[in-house]
């Protein structure tokens, strides 16, 4: 009888497609919005992810995230290096500067200052130039998206000049970085150079990053640093989640995305549920005839569930497919969405939502089928 159920479903192509696209549209909304939300939240921690060598992050004890920074004194790095169990520790600057082109066009940029000697924190993917050139006077790297933002429509080229805090900087390299939360260009310099590009403050050091010796866990190293120096010391994972949780708790982003995701669920459930219910309703006399011919309720439930499962599976595949296509295309043409993808958790979660939608639609329909008197077939 499953074959009959399948044929019945295919027989009413308009309703079949209506229900399938109801699910697909809901899945697209939920998957796309949930993925963008997770992608955005994940971006808040991207500055940390780009410093892969460091498992220990030291900063001011009132620090709440990776973007709002209370500088600490430059000498802090020596104190951290002196803590027992630390293998190495270097300085890392992160701040915001204004980069101005010679013709006056400017953009706010994220300025990173990496350790002059080890280049810990420097970008890994170099598109043009040589990292060693960062040691040249006034030298900076800029990320590709930043170059496109500052010089839109122009080819990537080294040797361009920008001005930050009335100091000339020369672009000696173009790199790829993880997309930052603020979608500003990322400019990378050595620590000593970067601190020249900003207004002078007594304390300038954003973070001390490092790693413990073998046999000491990052968590243990952090505990020792806190005890010895009074600074906030966090493991990489702790700092990532502290930053993400800060943005979740202190911005309207989760609420806005949450509303869209709920709307996706409601729209999907309403369209798919209603269409599938109407489909069952219109086939009620056929279900009645099947009942009269000896199809018991268990087999009828199986038929309705099979029809619902087919709609759910195809709708889910279409919806996720459309979401994948969206991220594939948008990642190439919209720099703001680069690096966004569908986490497997979202794909699984959406599958769960589809099961809920389909269960809802089936229950609405099954009620009518199960309560149907087979004698209804004699009522014309």
């Amino acid at each position, binding site marked *: *009888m499953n*074959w*009959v159920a399948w*044929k*019945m479903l*295919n*027989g*009413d192509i308009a309703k079949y497609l209506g229900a399938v696209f109801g699910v697909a549209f809901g899945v697209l909304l939920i998957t796309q919005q949930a993925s963008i939300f997770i992608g955005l939240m994940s971006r808040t921690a991207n500055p940390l992810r780009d410093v892969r060598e460091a498992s220990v992050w030291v900063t001011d004890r009132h620090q709440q995230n990776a973007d709002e920074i209370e500088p600490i004194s430059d000498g802090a790095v020596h104190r951290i290096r002196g803590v027992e169990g630390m293998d190495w520790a270097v300085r890392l600057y992160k701040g915001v500067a204004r980069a101005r082109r010679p013709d006056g066009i400017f953009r706010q940029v994220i300025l990173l200052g990496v350790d002059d000697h080890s280049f810990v924190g420097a970008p890994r993917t170099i598109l043009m130039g040589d990292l060693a050139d960062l040691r040249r006077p006034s030298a900076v790297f800029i990320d590709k998206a930043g170059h496109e933002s500052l010089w839109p429509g122009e080819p990537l080229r080294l040797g361009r000049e920008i001005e930050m805090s009335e100091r000339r900087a020369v672009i000696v390299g173009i790199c790829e970085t993880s997309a930052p939360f603020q979608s500003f260009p990322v400019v990378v310099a050595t620590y000593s150079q970067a601190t020249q590009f900003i207004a002078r403050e007594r304390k300038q050091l954003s973070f001390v990053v490092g790693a413990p010796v073998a046999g000491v866990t990052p968590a243990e190293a952090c505990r020792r640093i806190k005890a010895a120096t009074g600074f906030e010391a966090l493991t990489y994972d702790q700092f990532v989640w502290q930053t993400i949780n800060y943005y979740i708790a202190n911005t309207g982003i989760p609420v806005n995305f949450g509303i869209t995701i709920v709307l996706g669920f409601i729209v999907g459930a309403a369209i798919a549920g209603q269409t599938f219910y109407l489909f069952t309703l219109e086939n009620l*006399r*056929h279900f*009645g*005839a*099947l009942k*009269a*011919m*000896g*199809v*018991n309720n*268990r087999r009828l439930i199986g038929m309705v569930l099979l029809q619902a499962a087919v709609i759910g599976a195809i709708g889910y595949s279409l919806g996720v497919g459309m979401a994948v296509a969206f991220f594939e295309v948008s990642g190439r043409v919209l720099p703001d969405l680069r690096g966004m993808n569908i986490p497997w958790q979202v794909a699984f979660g959406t599958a769960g939502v589809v099961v809920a939608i389909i269960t809802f639609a089936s229950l609405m329909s099954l009620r009518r089928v199960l309560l149907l*008197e*087979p*004698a209804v*077939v*004699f*009522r*014309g």
Partner: protein
Amino acid sequence: MPTALDTPVPDSPGPRPAVGVACRAIAKEFGSGETRTRVLHGIDVDIGCGALTLLIGPSGCGKTTLISIIAGLLDPTAGDVTLFGTPQSQLRGNRRVDFRARNVGFVFQQYNLLPSLTAAENVAVPLLVARQPRKRAIEQAAGVLDAVGLGSRLKAFPNQLSGGQQQRVAIARALVHEPRLLVCDEPTAALDSSSGQTVMELLKSVAVHPDRTVIVVTHDSRVLQFGDRLLEMADGQIVLDTVPSSHP
């Protein structure tokens, strides 16, 4: 007015046909309290095999309710129906459904063919209900369709068939699993005179079988000639049990 009790079925020459359907004191009420309505009032009737029995009467007289009870689609409020020696009151739930699937065939006024299945696939449905493999079921269905004169329309969908052809497909579907009871509800009501005649001739020639009871509910006076026996109902009772006057 004569009733079923005082108008016995005349003996036909030869051995008396076996009783397929035995109704005893069948009563049916719908609703409750002040809205309770008694639709059938203690019907007693035996319907034999090997004959085509017509059930006629005005709208609302209880014909549909009676055949629904006989076919096991409705429970009577009182009384019992015995189908081929099996009291229906002894069958409950899935056992009754299985009994119906094996022993009862239906022809509906509106055909009730599944629009997305071909003629052969529609006819195969009762065999699929009996869990026969699909390929074999469709092959068997093709044979029955051939017998009702639609061997060339096996792959036609219902909307590609005329009303008369659809009803022939429905008859093939009702017979494909060789049921012992065939219940037809107004099989000619949606057909023109010519198609109606064809359908009744078909029922008479293909459906009537020494081991099968055939009951046809009809309003259509043009088909009375095809009946071997005529049961007329009024106000929930059988008021006439006779041989149609035009019966050969």
